[in-house]
Each structure stands twice: as structure tokens, then as C-alpha cells.
């Protein structure tokens, strides 16, 4: 199992992501954004979190024109598995690999804390090791995590089980930290090979550090 992790100027979660996947037994490689290809043996491509290009213009907007992104789009369109975490999610929406967009948080604050999430759909490799309606605790750390999609787009997401995770309280009731439409924290594309979420599963790998709920999420990819 080989996980390739993209690195743009300003990416800052690539080593956490590498550590997390290696702890689960995967081989990893960090791919600099100037590369025009991704490693041939890649089984999973991760667009890691951070602040690519300083979030200039819009979060993720400039990263989508990096040389490597052509290869990423081709990889995704050929069915390759892609996971975007936080800024990676923003990059994937800007690149139109995922529907919708991420706006400034409703109350304009940068939010950095552990948050409960509810598993909405698990008929996909990312969440198959979790149960439907299971509550997990994963850190969030973002300024632009307010997910927006228009009503037609939202209907499509529900019709195809593309809503993966919502922000909730410990009982699974809606608790929306950032104003996201329907409290959405993570989605996938219609083909279920491109995944995006604002929370950071790679930061929830050790119970000692607050939560190891990220392990089951990342493991889903390793068994695929």
C-alpha cells in the first residue's frame, strides 16, 4: 500500500499525515507540487492540510494551478482514490473534483478544537470501518470550513449517499461550529473515489493525545 502526499508551499500537515499512514503500515511518499506526475505505484493520493499559497485569493484557489494538479485530476478521473483533508478539501472543491465550496466560518473565527462528528454514510471505503450514526471525535482547525452547496447540489449529495460526516454533539444531534449547510463536515464525489473533509483524522491517532478515532478512517483506505 503506497500513499502519496501532496506538498504545496504552505502545506503543513504532510508530515503528520505521513506519520499516521506509516503507523498503520503504509509506504508513503511526499510529492512536491512542481512534479508533473504522481508516483506510479500510488494507491491513495492525499492532499494534506495547511495553508497552500498562504490562502491568497481564496483557500485552495492557487494550488489548483500547480503543475501536479493536472496529474491529480487525471488520476481521480481514472478512478484513483484521493483524500483531501482541510486545505486539501478546499483544493479539491476549487479543482471541481468535489462539488460545493468552503466559505469563511459563519462567526468569522479560526476554530481549533476537538469536535464530535456523526457518520452519515459508510457505503464507501473511507468510512466502511465505522458504523452508520457512529459518533467520533476528531480535531478541526480551520478558518474557511463553512461548506456551501446550492439546493439542487445538496439533493444530489443526499440522493447518492455523498454526505459522509456532519458536525454533531456527543449524542449525534446537530452542533454546527462553522455555519456549514446541513452541518456537513465531509463529502465524496458521485463515484466515491474522491473524499474531502475539514476535520483532521491524522491528528486523532493516539488516545493519549485526545482521540484515536482517526485510525479507523485511515484504515479504510489500507484494506482497499
Amino acid at each position, binding site marked *: 500500500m503506497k500513499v502519496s502526499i501532496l506538498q504545496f508551499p504552505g502545506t503543513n500537515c504532510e508530515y503528520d499525515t505521513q506519520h499516521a499512514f506509516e503507523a498503520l503500515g503504509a509506504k508513503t511518499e511526499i510529492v512536491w507540487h512542481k512534479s508533473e506526475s504522481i508516483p506510479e505505484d500510488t494507491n491513495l493520493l492525499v492532499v494534506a492540510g495547511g495553508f497552500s499559497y498562504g490562502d491568497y*485569493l*481564496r483557500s485552495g*484557489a*492557487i494550488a489548483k*494551478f500547480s503543475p501536479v494538479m493536472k496529474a491529480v485530476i487525471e488520476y481521480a478521473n481514472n478512478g484513483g482514490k484521493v483524500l483531501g483533508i482541510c486545505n486539501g478539501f478546499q483544493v479539491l*472543491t*476549487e479543482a471541481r473534483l468535489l*462539488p*460545493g*465550496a468552503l*466559505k*469563511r*466560518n*459563519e*462567526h*468569522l473565527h479560526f476554530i481549533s478544537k476537538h469536535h464530535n462528528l456523526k457518520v452519515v454514510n459508510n457505503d464507501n471505503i473511507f468510512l466502511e470501518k465505522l458504523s452508520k450514526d457512529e459518533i467520533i471525535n476528531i480535531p478541526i482547525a480551520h478558518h474557511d470550513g*463553512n461548506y*456551501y*452547496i446550492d439546493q439542487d447540489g445538496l439533493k444530489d449529495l443526499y440522493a447518492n449517499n455523498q454526505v459522509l460526516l456532519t458536525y454533531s454533539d456527543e449524542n449525534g444531534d446537530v452542533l454546527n461550529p462553522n*455555519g456549514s449547510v446541513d452541518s456537513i463536515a465531509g463529502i465524496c464525489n458521485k463515484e466515491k473515489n474522491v473524499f474531502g473533509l475539514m476535520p483532521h483524522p491524522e491528528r486523532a491517532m493516539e488516545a493519549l493525545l485526545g482521540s484515536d478515532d482517526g485510525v479507523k478512517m485511515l484504515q479504510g483506505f489500507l484494506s482497499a
Partner: protein
Amino acid sequence: MKAIVNVSLKAGVLDSQGKAVHHALNSLHFKNVSDVRVGKQIILQLDTTDEVQAREDVTKMCEEILANTVIEDYEIELVK
């Protein structure tokens, strides 16, 4: 020629910054403001004098990068 591009959130997309500014104006007793939208302005210096060409080029720039048309609208003003 100069192109002035104004980018703002589409009508119907909640503008949290606009709302916060509106609140601030109200607390400063500017009571006659009914709505505030915050956008951004991008000023481009273009190496052309052809207005039609300029508008076509800048429209393409807006569609590809300057605006995210999922949530934003843009307006282009050309200044000689």
C-alpha cells in the same frame, strides 16, 4: 488599459463578513443601513488597448481563477 474586477458572494449566499460589518455600523448608530455585502476588488494593468479583447481575457481570468463561480459573482469595469 486597466481592468477593475469586483468579486462578491452571490445573492442568496450568506455573507458573514457583511453581516458583522452591518452589526458594527448599527452599534455606531448608523441606523439607515439595511444591508452590507463585503467583496474584493482586483485591479489588473493590461497590455492592450482593445476593449473587446480585454473584456474577453478578463472574463476568462474570472471564470478560471479570480472568482469561484460556485459562490461568487464578478463584475468587470474597463478604464482607459
